[in-house]
């Protein structure tokens, strides 16, 4: 178990290493002169040279990479080209919004997706199943930003046109002074983020549940005289859980992508918005930092899922 875990962590580290190389070298080949970005409009040639030395841009690429890596390990991701702020700090400042969005989104989608999947699976072919499947297909098909725009139009704009305020149009409010306001502002983003993914879960739950409900041990459970509720929610659910947990790990990548779009649509100042802005500004240290953070997020999530998998499935223990 410990060995297994160490193996996963080592592989996670390898992934991050490769990822860092990928982005680092990607931006090395990118056109544009970072020194000029740092220096601003009226930089003289001497100033540019000075800045290049300061940033280490005159050193060979592998040296630059190694020094970057060395610092990155300690959490130092360098400084933004645009405002010379530490990248780690810039990202850190954006975390509350993104985490609020993502964590809430996950909760909403699990709370929506799994029950729908179960409902659908329990009555295969029935109207409820058809509805559930309809939800799944539509959810799967909705591009996040279209859904976002449409919900803004329907739940913010139209009510406001008729003079009342159903939901705010977005904007991030910190959790602390008033959690209610925080939540109220996040309801639309959460649902938008969650609906598309909830569909994935509903589908997965449904398929898994259908499969599980056909298993022999479910028949055994029924033959024991357990109530149908217990059969479904205890025996069925327990066996469905493992693949769901596994999927959750794989969806973290999806989630980050969704967060970028949602932050854009609802004007949330999260890491995703920072990334989009950094891309627009060609602020490479930030882009590298955000990509690495995203990678770290995914890697950690996957390790957690691996652990969960081991805990959930006695057969691999």
């Amino acid at each position, binding site marked *: 178990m410990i060995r297994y875990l160490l193996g996963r962590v080592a592989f996670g580290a390898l992934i991050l290493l490769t990822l860092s190389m990928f982005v680092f070298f990607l931006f090395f080949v990118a056109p544009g002169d970072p020194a000029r970005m740092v220096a601003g*409009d009226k930089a*003289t040639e001497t100033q540019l040279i000075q800045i290049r030395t300061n940033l280490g841009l005159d050193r060979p690429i592998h040296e630059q990479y190694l020094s970057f890596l060395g610092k990155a390990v300690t959490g130092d991701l360098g400084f933004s080209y645009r405002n010379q702020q530490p990248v780690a700090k*810039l990202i850190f400042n954006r975390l509350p919004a993104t985490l609020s969005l993502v964590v809430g989104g996950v909760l909403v989608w699990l709370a929506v997706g799994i029950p729908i999947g179960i409902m659908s699976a329990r009555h295969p072919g029935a109207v409820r199943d058809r509805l559930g499947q309809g939800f799944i297909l539509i959810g799967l098909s909705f591009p996040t930003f279209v859904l976002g725009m449409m919900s803004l139009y329907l739940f913010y704009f139209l009510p406001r046109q008729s003079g009342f305020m159903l939901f*705010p149009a977005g*904007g991030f409010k910190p959790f602390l002074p008033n959690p209610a306001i925080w939540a109220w*502002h996040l309801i639309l983003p959460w649902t938008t983020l969650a609906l598309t993914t909830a569909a994935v879960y509903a589908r997965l739950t449904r398929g898994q549940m259908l499969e599980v409900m056909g298993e022999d041990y479910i028949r055994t459970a029924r033959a024991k005289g357990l109530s149908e509720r217990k059969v479904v929610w205890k025996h069925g659910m327990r066996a469905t859980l493992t693949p769901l947990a596994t999927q959750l790990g794989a969806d973290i990548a999806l989630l980050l992508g969704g967060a970028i779009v949602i932050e854009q649509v609802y004007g949330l*100042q999260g890491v995703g918005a920072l990334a989009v*802005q950094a891309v*627009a*500004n060609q602020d490479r240290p930030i882009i590298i930092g955000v990509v690495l953070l995203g990678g770290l997020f995914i890697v950690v999530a996957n390790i957690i899922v691996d652990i969960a998998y081991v805990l959930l499935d006695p057969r691999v223990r």
Partner: protein
Amino acid sequence: QDAQPGGTLRILGTEDLDHFDPTSAALVTTNNFLRAVSRQLISYEASTDETVRITPKGDLATEVPQPTDDGLTYTFKLRQGAQWNAPSGARQITSADLERGFKRMCNPALGSAALTYYSSLVAGMAEFCDGFSKVEPTVEAMKAYIEGNDIIGIETPDDETVVIKLTQRAGDFIYMLSLATSAPAPIEVLDYLPDGPDYRSNFIASGPYTPGAYTPDSSLQLVRNPAWTADSDPLRKAYVDQIDITFGLTVDAIMQQLQSGDGDMTYDVTIPPAILSMLTAQGDEKLMTVSSGNTNFIFINTVSGNNNGALKDLKVRQALNYAVDKAAIVQQMGGPSIAKPVNGIFGLGVLGYHEFDLYPSPDAKGDPEKAKALLAEAGFPNGITLKMPFRNKGNEPAVAQTIQASMAKAGITLELTPVAPADYYSKFMTNPVNTQEGTWDIAPVGWTPDWAGGSARSVFQPQFSYDGTHQTYNYTDYNNDKANELGQQAINATTPEEVGALWAQVDELVMADAPVVPLIANLIVLYHGAAVQNFQPYSIGVQGDWTNVWLQQ
């Protein structure tokens, strides 16, 4: 209704400020920030009345002085009680601080974008700058130079008196003093690189507010400056306790939050035509238009060798002028109530603006035939292909595509390149190497005069005059000696009629060379949240004055 002090004013914006340091601030929007945290010698009252708005008032100066010595000498008395929020405790702003502010403008590492206005006027300033340019760009060396050298034309007989001597008469000098770039500077700032991180974190405010928590690209908080007293400041009421500025939002989000009450005012947003027409239709009283003298035009790259240097040919540039459908752009911007076609370099409200059109077309819709003919004459019967970058933000893509569409009719193919807004000027247009290498052929740009009213000089000088050294915003080193001469006369002239007539001539001279294609003059539409009261535009910030609004609780 009586003003209610207190509360937090929430301001929403897309982009972070360019600079904290008043000396180097260049963006119009930054003036609003500087209005709140710093004081100038001369400033304006924020007002909905256009004339009041552009009448200079004493800020640090007790009053607006009349020049003496045939208009060459200005003597200012500094207001007592105006203080620095210095680390050692509140301290009176002195005449030495004022002179130091002027000196810092010369800093070659990060000086003032408006430097040439001053250095060409203030006696001895050009020499001071020359000396400064040879100083090594280290904090110590720069500090030593500033402390050890003098600008001859600025005298400080005592702590509260400043005498400024000019090399020539200038009707607009008083206006120039309203710019934050010439604001006084406390001695402590010399210990930091101009506008460096240390400078920012140790910002010494003189206005009613001082920067608090700052998250670059994300948010900036302004809190009350304990060193500021209301009775020392006739222009700022400073009703609100705190100002929270949020950056990094999209225009949509800003407009939505503004309307939903999650924000009070905008920072750098042009209201999209769609919202505008909606608000207009609803008769929203919070809507307000102000003129800032802003114009949009296309700069033409006459420097690069692209297309065998086609754009160096006047005929081709004239063809471009004929080709553009300005009416379409007006329509794109939101219609005639928001924008107006212009044919010269000056915008509405600038003394010198007049109606003329050297490249006329019916209803300003462009004359593709004429353009084609000119192109053919110039040796491009089959049209020409030009590279045009544009800012990937707000209305710009739409305007770019509109230009593209109208140029296409004249056989001019535009290759559009979307550019990140932040990079457009500072990293793209203003990099002379890019211009020379021809990474762009034509580029839509905008210009707002640096100050209000008699500000033609601040349009002409930085963009259309060249004295041998490259100027940031004269991308192609355009020069016309005759225009320069007339401009000089206009600067020295005293009556508005004379000034206006001279600048009008300059305008026509420049347009005859067609270094640019003027597009439209904009009115700026302002909007604010429902809680905001006493929304009075501040003329050089082109936005409601943060220091004078109050919030309905």
